[in-house]
Structure formats: C-alpha cells, structure tokens
C-alpha cells in the first residue's frame, strides 16, 4: 500500500499542476503523509465526477448537513426535555432510540442510541478506542480530541485522570463507567441537572447543556446569577 499511495501522491500532484520535483520526497519510506491534501482531494473529486460516481451538489448537501443540521444543540434539546418531562426521561433511559425518535433526531451514526444517566453516584463517559464512533445526529461530527490517540488510549485505563484534565475531578466514592463504543449503538450521556435551575424553561435549560457534558467529560455548570437563573 505504501508504494501505491506514494504513486498516487506523486501523480495527483502532477495532475494538479504540481512541480514533480516535490514527488521525490515520497521516495523516502517515512514520507507518505499528504502535504497538499487540497489539491489531491480536488483531483480525486474531479475524477469521481467525470466517472459519474459523484454529483458535486450531493457533496454540498451532505456537508451542509454535517455543518448545520447535526450538532450538540440537538442533544441539548433531548437533555432539556428529559430534565423537564419525567415521563420522557423514563422512556429515554429505557429505550433511547424510541424516545429520541419522538424528537426526530435519529439518523446516520445515531440510528440506535443508548442513553446513560449521570447521577451523584455514577459518572458515565464515552469513548471509541478503535475509531471514532459518536452519535452524529445528537452531537454532530466528533471533535478532533475525541478521535485522537491520547483520548482513545487513556480514557479506558485512566478515566479519572482524563476527567481531571477536562476540569471534572471526581470523588473516590463515585463510580466511573466508561462506555467503549465497539458495536452499532451509539452512546449518549444524560448529564446531571445543575442546582439553581429549578425555575428555568426547557429552552433556557437547553442553552446550558454543552457537548462535553453529553460525552461525559464535563458536567453542566450552574447558570450565572442573572435573569432566568
């Protein structure tokens, strides 16, 4: 695969009008990392369009979904509903997939969802050690750190240390549950509702909920004193 990829790198550069002298770099075994991905991705896209395998407008539509239609505000809506509607919360914890379907947030990389609840005694945190599994419809595409080697390697062996780095130290008597997403279901953390939010509306609560709290590396902070708090 090395050889072929190097061949590709060199030729894609040429196809995009690159100076071929640059391709000499790729003769070294250690130099296979793309240095000009913009041009090489463009070259592949042109090829796939010319071969009738890809419609550029379909790419635009998918990117629009990833950038604008999925994301943590969907997950925050689920959390706020669970905090304000005990029957919904019960359904959510019993069958996350069915309850989330009520809100219309099921989708790719989030067709089967299990919701795990953080309490004063149990803290859940999500990881995918093998790759990058993550509930896309609820949280969007995962951040770089979630997909990174340090997070993937450390969270299963040292969850408390990882949580401390995220500003979430836990007492010894709290049980930490790490969920390594190895199969098809995607995990989602229902964070604890902070104190001082008893009178807040569902909308105001949703605005408090962060992506990191729904991954389980953070808690939802108490609202600042002020209107609505």
């Amino acid at each position, binding site marked *: 695969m090395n050889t072929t990829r190097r061949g590709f790198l060199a030729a894609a550069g040429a196809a995009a009008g690159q100076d071929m002298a640059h391709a000499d770099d790729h003769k070294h075994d250690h130099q296979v990392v793309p240095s000009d991905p913009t041009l090489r*991705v463009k070259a592949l896209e042109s090829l796939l369009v010319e071969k009738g395998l890809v419609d550029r407008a379909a790419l635009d539509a998918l990117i629009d979904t990833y950038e604008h239609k999925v994301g943590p505000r969907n997950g925050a809506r689920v959390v706020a509903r669970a905090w304000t509607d005990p029957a919904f919360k019960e359904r959510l914890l019993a069958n996350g997939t069915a309850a989330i379907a009520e809100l219309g947030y099921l989708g790719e990389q989030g067709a089967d969802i299990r919701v795990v609840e953080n309490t004063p005694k149990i803290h859940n945190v999500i990881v995918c050690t093998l790759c990058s599994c993550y509930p896309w419809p609820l949280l969007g595409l995962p951040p770089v750190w979630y997909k990174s080697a340090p997070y993937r*390697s450390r969270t299963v062996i040292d969850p408390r240390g990882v949580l401390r780095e995220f500003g979430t130290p836990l007492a010894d008597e709290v049980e930490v*549950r790490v969920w390594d997403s190895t199969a098809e279901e995607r995990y989602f953390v229902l964070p604890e509702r902070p104190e001082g939010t008893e009178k807040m509306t569902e909308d105001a609560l949703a605005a408090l909920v962060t992506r990191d709290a729904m991954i389980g590396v953070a808690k939802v902070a108490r609202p600042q004193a002020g209107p609505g708090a």
Partner: protein
Amino acid sequence: MNGIHDMGGMHGLGAIQVEKNEPVFHARWEGRVIAMRRVVAAGGKVTLGLREAIESIPAADYLRMSYYERWFTALIEQLVASGLVTRGEVERGKPAKGSVKATPALTAADAATLSFRVAGTMLKVEIAPRFQAGQHVRARNINPAGHTRLPRYARGRAGVIEQDRGVQAFPDTHLAGPVEKAQHVYAVRFTARELWGEAASPRDAVYLDLWEAYLEPA
C-alpha cells in the same frame, strides 16, 4: 487485527489537546472527503470496509496522519479494491479512455435528507441468545488478522453481561471456524481491576458491546 488503531490502554500517545470553538471542518477538503466517502458508499458497490481500510494503513503513517487524511487514504483504497476506479486513473486524475460513465447513486435531493433517513442497525432476526443478563463470561483470546471489534485490552478478561443489545451483523472479516453473520451483541461490564490490575479504582468499570462469537461462558 492487532493494529495501532486498537489503542485502548496504551501509554505514551501524548496529551489530550482540546481546541476551543473548534470548527466542524478545519479545511474545505475535509468535508469533501467525508462527503465523497458517503456518496460512494451509497452506491452499494464498495467491497472493502472503511474501517478495515483505515486499519490497514501502516502504523507509523496512521499516527502521523490527521483523521481525514486517513479517511482520504482509505477512500482511495476502497475505490480501487471495489473496482470503481483504477490506480492509474487516480494517478492521472482522469478516467481511463473508454471507461464507462456511471450515474451518481445519490442526487443532491437524496443527499440532503440521507442523514436523517433512518435505517436501524439492529437486524430483525429471531435468534436465541446464548447469554443472559447477569451471566459471567470471558472475552475470547483471539487475534484475528482482519477487522474485529474485540479490542486487545479486553481479550481473555472476565466480565458480566449487563444487557442484551439485540441482533447485529457480525463485522469481523477473518475469524477461524464458521460464524453466524447475525448474532446477539451484549453490553459486557468489565471491572477496571479485571482489566488494569490492583492499581485501578475498585469502583470503576468499562463497558464494551461484544458480539456473541467474542464470548465464552466463565
């Protein structure tokens, strides 16, 4: 495979670096790659799995590449392995002379709704489960050369079935002996001490979703 991707429990991979207000994509090409991968998959002609292709990247390259660089590399491998493009075409950036032009499998209108058209991942197949919640099991000590979802850190370790997660398609590409492709998957609880020894917290646990073929009674 026992690849670098299977990194749960490793030390020495650096500090976690969090970027504040991170954009969805850091460069335009990243979005083009993930979208191209999705469109190509929608054509239904891809014979090499994305994850298997990613895991086949040599370890040193895997660690050096960014996430979407790995996806881009894997996408090319998928396209070539599936016969959708040739390496020559990729190298030239042009279709071969006389190559047949396909019709894109996904229109813009389809693509706009694709992410929310839900296909559940559970298989509606009636199969009797081999294990029940509360049962003690052990993850098998297997070292398949192909794609597997049984991480190394759990192999040989004892755990307890927490929940039956239903029937899912078995993802491994190489496993000795006949294996049913549709199997029950179980959430299995492993105590932190079982996985990491006495220095781990006595309270903590790691849960993995494991296919029946990965498990044996303990």
